[in-house]
């Protein structure tokens, strides 16, 4: 049986997210909008992909899995121009790195893409 056809889909259709700061690192908690999409996120939103997505903006990426919350937690190191009070950035505390991650595209089965886009309408 051939593998189901994959199409690229932005994470905004599959997940919601919240971010905050840890010193000069931002954290992004990425939460599947439907629990059945968590495994797709776990397989596709890899450290390598997230590092590539944020290249030039962060110095390193760590990932933790929280299957109980259908969530992944990312630490984006060196993301905040020194962080806290030192940073000159508008987003000195990394509050909206969450939405920057939701711009990322991952390959998903066409049926999932259709369902996710439909749910977003």
């Amino acid at each position: 049986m051939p593998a189901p056809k994959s199409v690229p889909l932005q994470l905004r259709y599959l997940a919601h997210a919240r971010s905050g700061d840890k010193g000069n690192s931002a954290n992004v908690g990425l939460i599947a909008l439907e629990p059945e999409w968590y495994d797709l996120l776990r397989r596709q939103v890899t450290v390598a992909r997230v590092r590539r997505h944020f290249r030039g903006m962060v110095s390193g990426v760590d990932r933790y899995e929280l299957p109980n919350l259908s969530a992944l937690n990312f630490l984006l190191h060196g993301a905040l121009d020194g962080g806290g009070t030192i940073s000159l950035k508008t987003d000195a505390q990394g509050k909206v790195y969450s939405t920057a991650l939701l711009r990322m595209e991952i390959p998903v089965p066409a049926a999932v893409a259709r369902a996710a886009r439909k749910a977003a309408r």
Partner: protein
Amino acid sequence: MSARIVRIAGGQGFWGDWLEAPVRQVEGGPIDYLMMDYLAEVTMSILQKQKSRNPEAGYARDFVPLMGRILPTIVAKGIRVTSNAGGVNPRGCAEAVLRLARDHGFAGKLKVGLVSGDDLLPRLDELLTAGHQLRDMETGQPLSDIRSRVLSANAYLGMAPMVEALDRDAHVVITGRVTDTGLTLAPMFHEFGWDPDDWDKVAAGTVAGHIIECGAQSSGGNLLKDWRKVKGMANPGFPIVEVSDNGSFVVTKHPGTGGVVSVASVTEQLVYEMGNPHEYITPDGVADFTTIRLEQTGKDRVRVTGIRGAPRTPMLKVSIAYSYGFKAVGTLVYSWPDAYDKARAADRILRQRLKDLGLEFEQVLTEFVGVDATHGRLAGPADPEAPEVQLRVGVRSTDRAAVERFTREIAPLVLTGPPSVTGFAGGRPQVEEVVAYWPALIDRTAVEPGVRVEILEA
């Protein structure tokens, strides 16, 4: 089997949070405790500065008039309060509350528990000499490198002194630097008499504390999922945990308030500022966030169960603030057509002028608000038809004079740079002193013998 429930309400998520929230929490329905968190990481240094100018200052001043508004209700209903509003002067804060209580006719009717001993500034050199290096947890640098610039140093205390104050019948517990989560843990351990070495209970209380310590951020505020469907946010319900003797709890809010308590709203708060979820470390124990189970059991009710914990570590975290340098941020707005190109041209001119003046900066950061300020290059190319773009340039330096000179280079661009520029009515940018945060660890045996609990009566 006990069916007893203890209700702990979050009243403030930070110093500057919505002033009506604590009032509505005590008036809007049954609660047993109100916890109010005032201390962000750098708040202590701001308070330290205020205290150095005025020995009676150094605490979150808003707390006192707020107590004035809720005092009649909390006395009538028997609601008790835990708060770290004491900052670097918990005694001053406690005395102000006692004066207030007497002025309101509650003499002899209010006991304030005062927790002190977190302030390590007076002992800092003694501690360094004794071999506590207080290295920066992120960089590994020893504190001795910046000793002369230290403004405040406070250990994060756990729940123990607050439990003691509640055991000794304090109605209001006022502390300096304690953990946000301890403000919630203390009422739970006091009420149920749990063993402080019952790590699963410590972990459960820690998670409960984490959920309510940022105010409405767990009950609909800043909620991304289906944000358009979050209703009634002119009167947001702040979160309340209803805790059972077995350590499980329900997150809810008062009836008739706006916002939402859902698995999504609680999950977004759980992942906020998260590090390694297996090890959420507090002075009281270590919580494993991968064991948390959430279940929607009714409208605006989420049950939280299954939380596992591990023993506390021998170390306490120390929050140190030090003088880092100076910064300023200037902005100008450029309008269509070619708004982004005009803003970029202005940035190039500004940078050339700073260079020609020979000014030294550790950092000059340019952002184009409306183009790349929040998402950088991920936002894609600028829209050539954008109605306006804000140029936002920040500088940072140890040289105050250089930053001061920068603040005088923004307005001149209006008549000496690209056209269609506006938005400078706010005047010259302000020079800000940068007080930076230095997180360190210390052996708890160096701190805990100095922790004191006093019960003061109005």
